[in-house]
């Protein structure tokens, strides 16, 4: 579903991604982890071309993301993305947040879009908040709305960039629960996260990045059993301490 082949990227003179290759098959859940600044966010943004790359190739559902002829808005509409800081539109109600792109991009009628939005809000347990504005919701609620907003586009795959790291601890689980459910339903997911409990529960594979490189790409069992690289061992020992 998602194929990343030999991708390199520079910010000016600084090489942020070094010859990265990875893939996420249909129905697979891949967790990407690694120290802060290792390039995880950059890599995941490259998948739907929010960041351009200088070398290599990325395809999503067979469509080359990096081809200048590709209709990027159309492609991005098929890939859901959830951000660390939610990025709900603060000037729109929850309902409008969920229907905006359905109407403007997918050309659904307002009724279809509303129906879909309510169904998804129901699913993340927030139907009664439909008329509120993002600023009136807690962080956990906002992130669940953000997931619902992405799902409203009926995406082929979902990208998550540290969806719980801006949340107060007591709100992390309500978001992870939604993600676990999504994984169990067979959604194709690429998740940047340090929630190793989540990884153990639903990940098929774990990708470990450090310094712009993909240091390890292993099955969940191998990664948690005996990571081959020293850097991954060190990282795991650090984040599993607490």
């Amino acid at each position, binding site marked *: 579903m998602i194929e990343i082949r030999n991708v390199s990227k520079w910010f000016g003179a600084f090489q942020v991604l070094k010859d990265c290759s990875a893939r996420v098959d249909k129905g697979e859940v891949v967790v990407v982890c690694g120290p802060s600044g290792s390039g995880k966010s950059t890599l995941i*943004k490259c998948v*739907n071309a*929010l960041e351009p790359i200088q070398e290599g190739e990325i395809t999503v559902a067979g469509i080359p993301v990096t081809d200048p002829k590709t209709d*990027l*808005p*159309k492609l*991005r*509409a*098929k*890939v*859901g*993305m959830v*951000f660390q*800081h939610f*990025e*709900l*539109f*603060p*000037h729109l109600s929850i309902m409008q947040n969920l229907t*905006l*792109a359905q109407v*403007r*991009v*997918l050309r659904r009628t307002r009724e279809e879009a509303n129906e879909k939005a309510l169904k998804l809000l129901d699913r993340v347990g927030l139907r009664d908040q439909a008329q509120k504005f993002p600023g009136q919701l807690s962080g956990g609620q906002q992130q669940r709305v953000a997931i619902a*907003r*992405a799902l409203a*586009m009926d995406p082929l795959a979902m990208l998550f960039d540290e969806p719980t790291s801006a949340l107060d601890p007591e709100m992390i689980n309500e978001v992870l629960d939604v993600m676990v459910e999504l994984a169990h339903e067979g959604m194709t997911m690429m998740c940047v996260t340090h929630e190793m409990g989540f990884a153990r529960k639903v990940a098929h594979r774990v990708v470990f990045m450090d310094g712009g490189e993909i240091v390890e790409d292993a099955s969940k069992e191998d990664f948690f059993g005996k990571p081959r690289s020293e850097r991954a061992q060190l990282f795991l020992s650090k984040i599993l301490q607490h």
Partner: protein
Amino acid sequence: MGLDLSFFTWDLARNFLIGGLIFSVVLTLVAMTGGIFFGTLLALARLSDRPWLAFPAAGYVNAMRSVPLVMVILWFFLLIPFLIGRPIGAEWSAVITFTAFESAYYSEIMRAGVQSVARGQAAAGFALGLTYAQSMRLVVLPQAFRNMLPVLLTQTIILFQDTSLVYAIGAYDLLKGFETAGKNFNRPVEAYTLAAVVYFVICYSLSGSVRRLQRRMAVVR
């Protein structure tokens, strides 16, 4: 020598001032609307990473902001007939000039407004499949506009004061109305004093509303 205001009657207001006031207000509203529209386009061009858009936009804005308005008014008055090949009235010339001039100032405000909206907002729009134009129109600009509303209104008050500069090309605005009345009744000092009072009352009450709006927005945030 005391001020003799007895010449100031409703008849005088009707005959000399109302027309001028209407022109000043219409000129302000048209230049504001056009200025915010073109200013927003200029701001987006300036923020673009394409140099062929960013450079001319920056050049235009800086040029307009570096010359006195009265010069631009005179210059356009001479230049526009030359460009379109036929004479144009002082009123139309004023409308075009003020729109062009104010675009530069509004564009700086809108540029700050766009920058005040988190970068992630545009990214979230793109990620949902919105085009650049849709992301701007539906996501970024409404927030930028809202954040900058007090500053945009303050600029509009300044614009209203500046409309009095159309005296340079002989357009009939509010100030010209007072001036003409003063001449007719041979009371120039009183007329200009009244003009100052009227401009003061209008602008002071408008800036009062802006301050109230600002306080209300501070509470909402």
